[in-house]
Structure formats: C-alpha cells, structure tokens
C-alpha cells in the first residue's frame, strides 16, 4: 500500500511569475519585453545594483574581520535596529517607549510566513483579510499554515480607483478582532494607494472594530523616493492603534535596497501601551522566544550576507545618504516611464482612458488589460505580463516604451475597447 503513496501527489501549476521568466528565456524573438516580475531594471533593461550597495559590499569585503559565522537566531542586531528606525522614524513613540520586538526574516515572504506561523500558534481562529486583488502569494502564505482568509474590496475596476465604501464596509462587518493585511504603500498589484484622508478613515474603522493590523511594507522609499512619505500609513497606524492592539510589520529590502535574491528583511511586532500591571518586558521576551523557536525550526538562523550589506547601508551616514539618492533615481525613472507610456497611448489614440497609469505608484500598474489581451501581447508582440493585466513598469525603458505602447494599442484595437 505504501508503495503507491508517492503516486498520488498532484502536479501543481507552476508559479505564474516564475513561469513567465521561463517562457521569456526560451523566446527567440529579437525584441521581447519583460513586464512580469517585480524587479527594478535600469534604462538599459539591466538589473541595477545600487551604488550604495556597491560601496557597502566593498566595505564588507575589505573588513579584516569579515567571516561567515552564524548570525544569532534573531538575526543581525545592527540590521533589525537600523531597519525599525527607517520604518517607524527616529522619533517614534513606540521606539521611545520600547514596545517593539524585531527579528530578521527571509525578506518579505519570510516575515509574512513568520506572522502566519505566529498567528497559527496563538490565535488560529482569527480570519485573515486580504485586499481584492492582492499579491498572488499572500493567500498561499496564510492558507498553507492553516489560517482562513477572506477578502476586502479594494479596486473598483470600472473607475480604476479605490473602492473605499466597500473597503470600510468589510472592516465593519468582519468579525471583531480579525486580522487585516494592509499594503503599507505601492499596493501590489494595483499600484493604487489610499490617500492620507482615506487612510485615516480606514484605520479609524479598524480601531473601532478592534482588528489587528499587519502592514506588508515591501516598497518603502521605492514608491515616491521618500522614506517618510512612503511610511505614512504605517506611522499613522501605529499612532492610532497605540492604545488598542499590537501591530505587525513585515519589512522587505528586496526592492528599496535591491537585495532581491539575498533575502534581507525584518519582522516587527509593536505592542500597544498597557497599564502598569502588564510586564511589557516579559511579554516582549516571550514573543521573541516564540519567534526564535519558529526560526530555529525552519532555518536555524537567517542568511548573513544580505543582512550585512543592508546594515552597512543603514548605519553608515555616507552610504545612507547615497541610498536615499539611489531610491530617488529608481522612483523617478519609474514615474517617467509611467508618463511616457500614458502619453504614447494617448498620442496613438488608443481607445480608453490611461490616466490611471500615472496615478498609480510603485513598481506596478494595473493596466486594466484583459487576460486575452495579455495573451495576445505575449503571442504577437513578445510583451510579457501576468494575466491579471498587472505590468511591472520597471521593465519599461526609453528603448522599449514606444514599442510597448504600440503593442498595447494593437491588442486593444484588436479586441475592442469594450473588452477593457
């Protein structure tokens, strides 16, 4: 009987994004454009190592004490402490009041997985609310740990704008104390963020329903070029929730430091203010010990190289300054590409309104192109994006943006704008 056990495994569909990469690499057409995976490319379409990272690498390699020893289970302290300041701000009340537990994680996914493991252990019955749509991997991360997920309305397809009413309604009708996963900035995949006023409404409703907030912060500084601006929602959330509930923040350095493959990130848990009967130090120590147990059971201790680079960038004032400039370089190029794409579509008289492309922020644009249009883009024009119509704007450059606009123009006309 046991002989056949292996035979029953189901073949899973390949991960949509990683699969695009594969198709692209076997596509022999001379002009092909990758608007799939969310990784920054420079104006030559090449991966770009940030100048601040280059410098940090040099410093690390020249350090006579550099070695490959294990990091602690909680990771590199100079990373986690530098990282939390970037996120919360130098003057954060939560930091002053010492209410934060921070540990290193395997970038954003690892931090989210850690949150999922933590919820599974201590509040398994809570519903996890994800935006509709959301990053394709969010569902899997929580569901594979046995948590139940639900969705809240986010994107109004007709107006290509935020469905605030539906969003607030979902917050109000969700069981009290549910978990809400919020994209801190540069919402993936839509590129659409609530404005400051909308954030205040959303967070107020969340406080009133005693929900728990998990911020997924994958694009801080990458979206606008300004770390503080992109941390607006997180900081407002911490302020508004300071007396009511813990806040979890999953922080990735994949995009804003370009650490993609080095898997550098952090998991932060910010405890609420509580009355004097609660020994916050003890609660923090307990949380930390449980997080350590999770890490120990999956990877023992986190990888060192990426952590050391990011820590160097964050703790060396010269490099920090350079890094800020690097983020401006990336974000301004992407914003420029948004404008060029929109302008080209307008001048080609492509049916439909394309203003949302410039209104959106971060790596992606939710173009509104249908699945069949996306398919035709790939088949006829070798322009690759995921079937939801999400385009990674970082894949555009001055050499290919015209080509892409013409390709979009062709497929929209082919199917007709009623299919948009």
């Amino acid at each position: 009987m046991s002989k056949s056990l292996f035979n029953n495994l189901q073949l899973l569909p390949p991960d949509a994004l990683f699969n695009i990469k594969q198709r692209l690499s076997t596509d022999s057409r001379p002009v092909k454009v990758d608007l799939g995976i969310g990784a920054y490319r420079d104006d030559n379409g090449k991966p770009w190592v940030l100048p601040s990272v280059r410098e940090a690498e040099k410093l690390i390699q020249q350090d006579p004490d550099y070695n490959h020893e294990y990091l602690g289970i909680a990771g590199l302290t100079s990373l986690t402490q530098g990282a939390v300041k970037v996120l919360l701000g130098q003057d954060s009340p939560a930091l002053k009041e010492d209410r934060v537990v921070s540990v290193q994680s395997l970038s954003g996914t690892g931090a989210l997985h850690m949150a999922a493991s933590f919820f599974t252990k201590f509040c398994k019955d809570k519903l996890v609310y994800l935006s509709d749509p959301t990053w394709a991997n969010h569902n899997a991360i929580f569901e594979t740990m046995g948590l139940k997920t639900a969705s809240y309305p986010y994107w109004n397809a007709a107006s290509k704008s935020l469905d605030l009413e539906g969003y607030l309604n979902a917050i109000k009708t969700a069981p009290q104390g549910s978990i809400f996963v919020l994209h801190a900035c540069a919402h993936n995949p839509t590129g659409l963020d609530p404005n400051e006023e909308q954030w205040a409404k959303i967070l107020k409703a969340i406080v009133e329903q005693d929900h728990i907030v998990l911020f997924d912060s994958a694009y801080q500084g990458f979206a606008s070029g300004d770390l503080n601006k992109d941390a607006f929602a997180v900081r407002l959330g911490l302020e508004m929730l300071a007396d009511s509930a813990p806040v979890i923040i999953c922080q990735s350095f994949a995009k804003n430091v370009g650490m993609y493959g080095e898997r550098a990130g952090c998991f932060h848990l910010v405890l609420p203010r509580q009355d004097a009967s609660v020994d916050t130090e003890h609660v923090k120590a307990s949380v930390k010990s449980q997080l350590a147990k999770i890490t120990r059971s999956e990877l023992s201790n986190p990888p060192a190289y990426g952590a050391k680079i990011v820590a160097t960038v964050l703790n060396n004032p010269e490099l920090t300054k350079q890094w800020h400039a690097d983020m401006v370089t990336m974000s301004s190029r992407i914003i420029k590409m948004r404008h060029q794409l929109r302008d080209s579509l307008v001048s080609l008289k492509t049916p439909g309104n394309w203003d949302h492309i410039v209104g959106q922020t971060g790596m992606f644009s939710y173009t509104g192109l249908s699945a069949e249009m996306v398919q035709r883009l790939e088949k006829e024009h070798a322009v690759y994006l995921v079937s939801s119509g999400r385009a990674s704007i970082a894949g555009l450059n001055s050499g290919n943006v015209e080509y892409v606009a013409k390709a979009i123009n062709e497929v929209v006309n082919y199917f007709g704008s009623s299919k948009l």
Partner: protein
Amino acid sequence: MLRRQVYKFPGRIQAIPMAPPDKILGLTEQFNVDKNPKKTNLTVGIYKDNWGQVTTFPSVARAQTILDQSFEMNTDLSYLPIKGCPDFRENVLKFLYRDSCPEGVELLDQDRISFVQTLSGTGALAVASKFLSLFISRTVWFPDPSWPNHANVFQNNGFKNINYYTYYKEGKLDVDGWIQDLEKEARETTDEYPPCIVLHACCHNPTGLDPTLEQWRRILDKIQELKMIPIIDMAYQGLDTGDLIKDTYLLRLSLDKNRYQWPNGLFLCQSFAKNMGLYGERVGSLSVVTPSGGDVKHNVDSQLKKIVRGMYSSPPGYGSRVANIVLSTPHLKDLWFEDVKNVAQRLQSVKAKMAERLDWESLKDPSRQHGMFLYTGLNTSSVDILRERFSIYLVQDGRLSLSGLNDSNIDYVCDALRKV
C-alpha cells in the same frame, strides 16, 4: 471619538508562554556576556583554527575574490528561482551523485532526483519534513541522543509522533538495541503511513560515534524490511576522515540498487555549513531520490516548490554563488578537498593532545569519536560546574566542540575537565 480600549488580543499576547532558549545558541549568548578572561566556548559547531579564529577556507576565500572581481556575476542580486540557482543545482548534484556516489549516476541519467537549494541543513530538514507530513508520514524516529533541533524541526513542520531509537549506551554505540527498538516499536505501529527514520551520515551529533559499514548494512536491511523512509542528514561530510568522498559511504550504501529499493523515496539533507565554512550564509540542499522519475519526480518538484514559495519565496544567493564557484572551478575544488583534509587533521590532533592529558576511555581509541565533537559523557551538573566555576561552555548534554581548543587553552580546559 475613537474608543480607546485594551482588547482581547493584547490579553492573548500576554498569555504567550516563554519558549525555552535554544539549547546551543542560547549558551553563546551567555558566553558573550561572561567577563572571565579565560572563558572558552566549546558549544557551537563552528570550526576554529589553532589561534581560535574563524577563518575562511582558502578555497572559499579565492572563490569570493573571483566573485568580487567579476562584475557580471556580482551585478546580479536578482531573485533566484524558487528551487535555487540552476548552476548550483547542477554542480551539487554532480558532486553528490557522481563524485561522491557513483551509484547515483544512473539516477541522474534517469532524472529521478528532485532537488531544491535550501537554507543549509536545517532548511533541508524543514522542507523535507513539511513535504513528508503533508503527503506521506507523520511519524519519525531519531537516534537517542540526536541534535536537539531535530525534534523541533519535525514537530513544527507537522510531525505528530516523535520517537527515539537506542543509539548510545554506557559510552558505546548500541546497534543491537537500535535494531531491537525498530523491530519492536516500528513493526507494531498502527499508523497507516510509513514512518521516517533520520540517520546521521557520519560524525554523529552529539556522540561522535558512527556505525561500521557492516553495522550500517544490518540497520538499512531492517529499515527496508520495516518499510521506513530513510532521511539522511549529512552535515559533516569530509570532517570525519578528511576525505569528502570517503565520508559519503552511507549514501553509497543506501543507493546500492541490488540491495535496496526505497518505494517512498530517500531524502538527503545536505549542508555546506561545516565543510565549506559557509555557516551563516545558509547553503545546502535537499534531494529526494524518487522511486521512478517521470511524473512522480515532477509532481514532487512542484510540491517542494509550493512549500518554498509559501515559506520564503526563494533562497539567498550569495553563499550559493560562492559554493558554486568552488565546485565548478577544478583547481578550487582540489584546493577545497585539501582544506577539508586540513580541518579534519587538526580535529584529530586536538583529540590526540587531549588523550595525552586525560585518561579517558573515549579518547584512547581515535577511531571511536568522529568529527567536530567529543561526547564527554559529563552530566548536567558537571557541565554547570565547568561553566560557573571555569567559564568553560559545553552543551548541556556534555558535547564538546573540539575546534574550540587550541595550544593556548588546552591545558586550562583539560585541567578543569580533570577536576570536574
């Protein structure tokens, strides 16, 4: 106005119990704050040279230089595929299943080995145990004693029944007791799924005692008879005899197709932490030798990918790039073999020097203690005395990491050991 209140969740968070500190890495934290100038850390399995330094292996240092100077290779901090770097995969497979184990060539030709780059040995065990618990087995057998984190990894990844087989009795390896335990307990299991058994490939951690080839044959025969699934944990390849190839005997023996078939697969969890000194970079692999290749192998591949995608998306790049350069550059590979030999020789010489100073049974026969550790047989209270009175840190079970000893401290430590 916002209603301010302390909700249930903070209450829950207060109720989180303190998880015990990790048995090994926790001691290092204690060591770091010890003020005794003679303090000696003999806990963690990190190789130190005779000057007490953690040095990068010469082969690895040269690979790093190549990497640092190669603009092309170094430009790319991009995401690795979910299963890891393809070149790394190819070269590790060749190293493991061709160089180390000619029995594997046929398996490679038949494409029967499913492979993922993992976060070193722990990561391999985590992915393996997650996969097994999802589809094949919830019961595992470890040697008593074993690496303390083994049970933690399997428990946190879905295993329900954790069992221990007799391994060590009165200072000796007890193969008869081992086989009897399997015979008695595993045969009587009412579990409808086949149980797994974890085998230390060489340099058993913590006892340093390994079965002979003849004994391994008896053990593997029994494992096959009982339809158990072998999981080989190979963390110290090369550190036993100094010969990377020689130390792979358990894998070679298990893959002798005239003697063994593994209808539910054979799992190899392999690490470059110790034998390349890449500890903190987290480099290793999981390979699953599937019974028939083809669809079964592809289905396993797809499930392993899903697990990784939900845990951390993709593995860290740097360490695997370094390891890949060592494995794929002939003169560096030769140098690496030399490096490993030198490490093993130093470990042997430390044992010999201890034997001159201590009249211990376990030190008399150098063939009895394999690898980086000496299992002193000291009980907990003796270990406590060593730590409290002499600032000499051993793992609580009496395991002593040999490479922590050198010419400058061996007299001090041996004196203390004698007194205790």
